[in-house]
């Protein structure tokens, strides 16, 4: 039970951590100042959520590892995030579409987690859901604006959707960890969120005048159990972890 809970908390924390890091790469590079600030603030919220999930993961594991230890001292195969969040940023449109695909899931998942039988999980979800609701409002609006925008922005958003949509489907691949946690009422079975998620995404995509591609998640393993990651994750970690790797135990 503790093992499955630890795994589930890593999945929650690592999705937020890796996406937060990816989004923070835009800091100082976004097309306009307002978007730069918005991206940096979104990244900050995600890192805050990471801290809450990984701190609890460390406690559940019971080996004295802090949130920082888990973030900075694990190797690629120990990460439990979906591949969607580790993909390169691409252009601004691709970044914002990935953000929407994640935000929509994150909000639904957190809303369900508010009812968790584990008090700590439900408290973290209550806090994070408010932030996620704000994120989805922005990323959804921007996806619609760019999809239903100029010829060029429309084309770029369609290209981004063709690349990213299959990856979004990984969010609903389930395993025995999910089954055990769902049975205990701690974490919802991701499959139970799939239909409402696909309906919400479908509505947004059609409002954005884009077309959903015929897609399935084509990889043979999933990032959720660490058996599969793209080559991009290792590159993220070299950036994210270099300080703790080069100067172990360094602090502010």
């Amino acid at each position: 039970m503790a093992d499955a809970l630890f795994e589930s908390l890593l999945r929650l924390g690592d999705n937020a951590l890796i996406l937060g890091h990816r989004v923070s790469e835009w800091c100082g590079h976004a097309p306009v100042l307002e978007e730069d600030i918005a991206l940096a603030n979104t990244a900050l919220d995600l890192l805050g959520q990471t801290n809450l999930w990984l701190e609890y993961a460390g406690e559940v594991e019971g080996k004295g590892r802090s949130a920082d230890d888990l973030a900075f001292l694990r190797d690629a195969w120990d990460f439990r995030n979906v591949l969607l969040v580790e993909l390169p940023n691409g252009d601004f449109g691709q970044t914002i579409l990935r953000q929407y695909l994640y935000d929509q899931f994150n909000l639904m998942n957190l809303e369900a987690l508010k009812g968790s039988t584990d008090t700590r999980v439900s408290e973290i979800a209550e806090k994070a859901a408010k932030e996620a609701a704000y994120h989805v409002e922005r990323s959804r609006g921007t996806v619609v604006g760019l999809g239903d925008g100029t010829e060029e922005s429309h084309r770029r958003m369609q290209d981004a959707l063709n690349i990213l949509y299959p990856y979004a489907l990984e969010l609903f691949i389930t395993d025995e960890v999910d089954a055990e946690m769902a049975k205990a009422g701690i974490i919802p079975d991701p499959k139970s969120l799939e239909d409402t998620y696909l309906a919400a995404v479908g509505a947004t995509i059609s409002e954005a005048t884009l077309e959903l591609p015929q897609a399935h998640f084509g990889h043979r393993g999933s990032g959720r159990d660490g058996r599969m990651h793209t080559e991009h994750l290792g590159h993220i970690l070299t950036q994210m972890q270099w300080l703790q790797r080069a100067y172990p135990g360094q602090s502010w």
Partner: protein
Amino acid sequence: MRPSIDQIWDWLGEVPDPEIPAISLVDLGIIRDVGFDGDTCVVTVTPTYSGCPATSVINMEIEAALREQGLEKIELKRQLSPAWTTDWVSDAGREKLEKYGIAPPQPAGGPEKCPICASTNLELLSQFGSTPCKAQWRCKDCLEPFDYFKCI
């Protein structure tokens, strides 16, 4: 002698928010409880946003303020639930925000009026502003951009 709980609230009411020094931590509504556990003063604090970088500075300032008043044993507790809401910003706090040039949070989800000229002819520039708790708006009459304390 142990100070009264009301006295401690008064002291905390003088501690400015590190990012918006115009209002105090009590005005912001993030101090959820003050009490004593034996001779240890326990202050319960809730974060505004989970990633708010001011959180650790806030804890330091609370401790420093209470030490200055002679309290030696201080414990800070983090409380996540119920999650902080802008409904907890006090009336005094809302007034101070507006005077400072930040439109206070409104249940309607946008500022009521321009904090500079009071015009209601406003537009949203960005859902995010200079800190996680603010959005950027602009007044279409005086043309000044201003911060809006977003409602959560």
